[in-house]
């Protein structure tokens, strides 16, 4: 298809709690991606970065900060911020540049250094800020994940054992990923023994925050063919659509949903709308998908995503899980990277890390984690303030 671009290289700095400057992770990931692509740095004419909000001004202009560290060479630069979808938005900017014929090769990169401890909102009395209000009332991030998890239990009959099984599955596969931060194999007993954070979710059901960096070298199909990589994995679709009024699901950091009381207004679930545009753009359907990388901020959320991506009918993701269909070797493996459960979230790098995994899988280079015959991969993530994305990679 005419709107495709090639993924020539992928690279990551391992996730962890290293405490270094984010630029260092970005540079390491970019160098690995460049080497993987076999493309000289001088040939990169567009650098598209995902911003980090936690590292001061250099973080707001992350694309430039990392480009400067790699050595200014006169390329154009961009920085995107879209919460958890920042990496996808940076990728979309690179794709636009390439498809417009303004550059042949681009670097897309995201990196983050997370602070130690709880990230609390600014103080004072600020009821106009929904983030302040919800913390004042005692509503934290896990509250929202737990509301979604509990709804699954009451509506579909999901159990605590199902949620634990997601963690067990992801930790088993993640133990084989050298780039993952948590590489221990956990058992259902380990999960059950961890502290209850927000009923029904325990500490081990919820993902941590991490340092990390991920990068992609992308190019026009023409350039890929020119350097003998015409059969490289391709970005077939990027969806970064906003929600549609009215919101059906109460989302962080809001205290309420929209009202769907007006004539002609229906309630819409945002997560489920994200892949719709991606499937349409790629001209494929969920039945074509070989594997998915989804944003498992909680174990239960992985099950929601499986249904949002239409890989299972609503309410039936747990049945898929119980049958082993979402594990490596199953019908539709989900999070064979180990997912956020094994990585922890490094916001501006995470959406790119998902695409890195799909790239290696579609090339057949994922080693012990390889999904046999992987041809089509899809990612999905969602962040604050109406940001989310879904990317489809094909080969």
């Amino acid at each position: 298809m005419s709107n495709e671009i090639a993924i020539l290289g992928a690279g990551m700095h391992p996730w962890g709690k290293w405490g270094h400057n984010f630029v260092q992770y970005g540079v390491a990931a970019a160098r690995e991606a460049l080497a993987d692509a076999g493309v000289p740095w001088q040939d990169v004419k567009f650098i598209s970065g995902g911003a980090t909000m936690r590292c001061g001004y250099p973080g707001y202009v992350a694309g430039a900060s990392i480009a400067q560290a790699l050595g200014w060479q006169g390329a154009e630069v961009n920085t995107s911020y879209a919460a958890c979808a920042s990496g996808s938005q940076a990728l979309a900017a690179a794709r636009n540049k390439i498809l417009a014929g303004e550059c042949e090769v681009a670097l897309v990169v995201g990196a983050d250094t997370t602070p130690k401890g709880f990230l609390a909102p600014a103080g004072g009395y600020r009821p106009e800020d929904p983030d302040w209000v919800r913390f004042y009332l005692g509503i934290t991030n896990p509250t929202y994940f737990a509301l979604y998890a509990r709804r699954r239990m009451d509506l579909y009959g999901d159990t605590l054992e199902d949620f634990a099984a997601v963690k067990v599955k992801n930790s088993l596969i993640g133990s084989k990923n050298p780039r993952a931060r948590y590489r221990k194999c956990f058992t259902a007993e380990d999960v059950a023994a961890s502290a209850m954070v927000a009923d029904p979710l325990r500490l081990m059901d919820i993902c941590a925050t991490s340092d990390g960096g991920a990068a992609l070298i992308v190019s026009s199909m023409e350039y890929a063919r020119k350097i003998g990589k015409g059969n490289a994995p391709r970005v077939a679709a990027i969806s970064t659509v906003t929600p549609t009024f009215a919101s059906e699901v109460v989302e962080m950091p809001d205290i309420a949903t929209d009202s769907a009381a007006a004539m002609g207004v229906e309630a819409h679930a945002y997560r489920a709308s994200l892949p719709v545009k991606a499937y349409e753009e790629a001209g494929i359907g969920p039945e074509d998908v070989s594997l998915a990388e989804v944003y498992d901020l909680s174990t239960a959320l992985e099950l929601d995503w499986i249904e949002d991506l239409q890989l299972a009918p609503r309410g039936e993701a747990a049945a898929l899980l119980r049958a082993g269909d979402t594990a490596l070797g199953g019908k539709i493996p989900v999070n064979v990277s180990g997912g956020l459960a094994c990585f922890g979230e490094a916001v501006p790098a995470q959406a790119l890390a998902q695409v890195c995994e799909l790239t290696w899988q579609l090339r057949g280079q994922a080693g012990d984690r390889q999904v046999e015959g992987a041809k089509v991969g899809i990612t999905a993530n969602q962040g604050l303030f109406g940001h989310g994305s879904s990317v489809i990679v094909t080969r």
Partner: protein
Amino acid sequence: MSSSDNKPYAAAIEGWHTMGAKPALIGTQCDECGSYFFPKQTQYCKNPQCESTDFTEVELSRRGHIWSYTNAGYKPPTPFVADDPFEPFAIAAVQLEKEQMVVLGQVVKGVGVDDLKVGLPVELVLEPLHETDEDIKLTWKWQPSEC
């Protein structure tokens, strides 16, 4: 209204709910399309089909049904003011039928997640959120109701 140690009661967040015996959340309704907003929206309507800038303050339904629920097992960070020692509390997301929206809030003291279920009818009451030197701050909480 005053507490046992003679501190007066005050709304934790002023203007977000009425203070009487049958308290209700205060929202707004768009004069043109009828969408409800909580917290109050007074400048522009978020309905993409509506360009209204006129809103009327309304009391939202005091009763609804639980959309989902959880609890806070750990002490939330500031600006939350925790009792010492910290007591876990339940939280509910409640569907208001007339407004067709879901509103979050704590659940009254003494009611835990084991007492709750998706679809359970609840009503809005006021309960202390925390104390200051001057007063006791009240907020809205959800309480399982009879019918």
